[in-house]
């Protein structure tokens, strides 16, 4: 009963923090390998095939 009451008040869930940490690490690894410049390179051009033209 005590644990149920504690659950009702709320317990910190670990899953979102783990997911947040893993995602941040992935982003850092990707950024360190220079991916953002590749993303920018794509995003600065009109991708005609992306929008169904050409």
């Amino acid at each position: 009963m005590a644990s149920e009451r504690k659950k009702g008040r709320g317990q910190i869930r670990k899953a979102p923090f783990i997911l947040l940490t893993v995602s941040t690490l992935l982003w850092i690894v990707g950024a360190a390998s220079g991916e953002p410049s590749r993303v920018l390179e794509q995003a600065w051009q009109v991708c005609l095939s992306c929008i169904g033209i050409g």
Partner: protein
Amino acid sequence: MEFARKWVQILFGLLTNANWAFPFTRSIYQGPLKVICSPGLNCYSCPSSTTYCPVGSLQNILGGIKISLSNNQYFFGLSVIGALGVLGAMFGRMICGWACPFGLIQELLHKIPSRKFSISRSLNYGKYAMLLVVVILFPLIMVDEFGGSSPWFCKFICPAGTLEAGLPMLLLQPNLTSTIGALFYNKLAILLSVLLWSVAASRPFCRTLCPLGAFYGLMNRFRMVKLKLDETRCTNCKACHHVCPMGVKFNENPDDPECISCLACLHKACKFEAISIEIGGMPIAATPARPLGTNVPDSAKYPF
């Protein structure tokens, strides 16, 4: 709350599409903000777009893996997946409900008076197939003789791209009309179908086809900000079922991957304070937990 949500949706729509000079420049934004990931589905070839589309970027990176590896560049889309993961871990599909411009367009269309239809739950799996097969596997497998691949989802399906980028670019650069063909008309037909479907059903694209919604949906159970059900207060009156625009039966599955946290169940339906918002497990605006086994008095029951 619905009013506030609409304003947040409009705000995010404007923030991710802040290049309002496009009618004069007649081209897309090419500034440094495009290194920022758009939380919702927003084509980066849209003339007003100031952020990159995660779905488009991921496909382009995956489709170019062979070429980048041959140049000793190790681009696997980790920065895009990481950015999406951070957003998903924080908000899950709350982004669909609060920050996606294409979601807003579908919601506005659904307000047009007409006969309304439900969407079969089985169709919801379509978006997972779209994410796995069309967004991830096709760019990896279907490569040409040069080792590159197409952004399959953007090229053949994405109605947001046709609406936000294809049509505006044709208006801004009329010389492009000479290049349109079957591909464009096929995408136009998909766009029109989705728009018409949105009038008759609530958020059909989000529920059945959107790969971004699928990605966020997979993280819905684990997200930081989410709705919580107090089972001791829930009377199973099913009022939350009737107001949900995504067809979620909240009291039966509070972690449903379709829940976009629009808060309709919280503010429009539940009269028993059985639904609350929690951040990382800690309730905000919390109501004291009712001891287990205590029923809500008859006088407090939903009036039907």
